[in-house]
Structures are given as structure tokens and as C-alpha cells.
């Protein structure tokens, strides 16, 4: 196993772990915010525009770091390990 293939294998695994972590974390975080928003609207329906604003505000702020993680994960995949160019070297017909 050459060191280059080791780097590519590690990058693929790292990409998968980062994506799983991002999806899990932001899913739980957004779920908590959205559930509280739905509860608040159910208690007081006339406050709906206000709560809608705060819902998107909360989601936007807390999605900042997950999106940064996605950006770094794609950077690892595309620039460090150059996975698509490797895939194009696999002969067609598989």
C-alpha cells in the first residue's frame, strides 16, 4: 500500500465521518430550535411572523459552523486527495 493510496483512503473515511457529524449535529440543533418555535406558535398564533424571524435567525447562526465543516470536508476531498481525477482513471465498463 503506497503512502499516496493511504492518504486517499484516509481522506475518504474522514469525509464520511465529517459529513455524518455535520448532519447529526445540525439535525439535532435545528430540530430543537424548530420544535421550540412550533410550540411557541401553538401557544400564541398571532406572534407567528416574529417567531418565524427568530426561527430563521437561530437556524442561520447555528448552521454557520456545520457549513464551515462541509466546506473543509469538500476541500479535503477535492483538493488534497483529488478524488474525481482518480475516479476518472478507473477504466470505463465497470
Amino acid at each position, binding site marked *: 500500500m503506497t503512502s499516496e493510496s493511504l492518504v486517499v483512503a484516509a481522506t475518504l473515511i474522514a469525509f464520511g465521518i465529517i459529513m455524518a457529524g455535520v448532519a447529526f449535529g445540525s439535525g439535532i440543533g435545528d430540530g430543537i430550535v424548530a420544535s421550540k418555535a412550533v410550540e411557541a406558535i401553538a401557544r400564541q398564533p398571532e406572534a407567528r411572523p416574529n417567531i418565524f424571524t427568530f426561527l*430563521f*435567525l437561530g*437556524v*442561520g*447562526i447555528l*448552521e*454557520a459552523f456545520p*457549513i*464551515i465543516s*462541509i*466546506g473543509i470536508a*469538500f476541500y479535503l476531498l*477535492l*483538493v488534497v486527495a*483529488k478524488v*474525481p*481525477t482518480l475516479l476518472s482513471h478507473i477504466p470505463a465498463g465497470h
Partner: protein
Amino acid sequence: MHEQIGEHLVWNLPVLGTVHSDTIVTTWLVMIIALLFFAWIGASYRSPRVTKRQAVLEAVINYIADMVTGVLGEEGERFVPFFIALFIFIFLLNQFGVLPFKALGLPFGGSPTADLNTTVSYALMVFVMIQVVAIRKKGLKYFAHLTKPFAWLLPINTLEELVRPVTLAARLFFNIFVGELLFIIIASIVTAKVMVGPFNLSLAAAVAPFFIQFFNFFVGTIQAFLFTLLAIVYLSLAIAEEH
């Protein structure tokens, strides 16, 4: 594919060095379009009849003005034009990436906020504006707020102050850039005509960019709104009066 992502056409200017020409040209184009569009709306104010475009524009401006005065109070009135301009311009810059100028080979196109230079300069502009306004209002005693409530919190408070423009810039940049990146990846799957056995993956994936662009439009609006709102909140924290 790496050549398409994150690569910008460059100009080599004598004093400024290497600049991203497609970002600059696209920003100029959006500026011209925005000026013409708002001049067109403003021209309808000559006649005394209220038109639909006036109503839409005034709804947007009232929304932001209410947000500003709601957070900042009475003295927020003089900042309202700045935040209106910030919101509308960042919104237009974010949405401009939907139009496929770059794929057609033109030297502009793509969202300027997908370039870190744009977002960092806007975040720095907001940061400097907040510091200058706070110093003009409170004098140099403004920096005493870094030692509230305890003096040994000085490094933590300073770090928090300095990290704010960094997160503003990074949030806006990464949201828009990852949206464009996802679009490019799905588009490259579509053009590569991938067949998984008898199943034509490219054809099935051709529907995805449509929904991705909807999502990008949504994210662009939210991020523009969020940038403006966070700038307002940071300003209100800086010029807050002691109780």
C-alpha cells in the same frame, strides 16, 4: 474539476497586484443593475398614484427599518439607510450566482460572495464602522467594556470581539460557496453520463440542480438577512448605555 472550483480569473494590476477579475466585474455589474432598478422604481414616485413596485419596496424598507429601530431604539434612525443598503446589496450579490454566465464562458458570473475577499471586506467594514461609532459616542472609555464584569475576563472579551467579524465573513462565504460547490458536483455527475448497470444515474440526477437552486435562493436570502441582523445586534451591543 478542481480547476473550476475556487479558481478565479485574475488581472495583474500595477499597484494592487493580482486581483480576482470576475468577482470585481460581477460586483460592478450588480451595482449598475441595482442602481438602474432602484432608479426605475424611484421614477414612479413622480406620479401621485401608488404603484405596485413602490408598495413592495416600501414593505422591504419598512421591515428593515422596524428591525433597526426595534433593536437600537430611537438613535438607530440614522443607521437605517446603511443597513438597508447592506441587506439589499448582499441579497443581490448572493442571488446573482444562479445565472449561468460563467458556464457560458463569459468573464463574469458566479456569486461575488463566493469569494472570501468580498465577505471579509464587508465584515471588516461593519467591524470598523461599529468601533468608530462607539468611540465617537463614548470616547476612549468605550474600551473599558472589555473589562466588564471582571478585569481578568479581558483576553476572553477581546477574543470574542475579534472573532465576531471572522464568523460573519466565514458564515456568509461558506454558505454561498458550498451551495455553488454542490451545484457544480451534481452538474458534473450529470455531464459525465454515469451508468450504474442499466440505471441511468445522470438522467435521474438531472432533476437535482433544479431543487439545489431553489435551496440556494433560500440560503442566499437568509444569509443576507442574518448578516444585516447580526451587524445591527453588534452595533447595539457596542453603543448600549450602562444601566
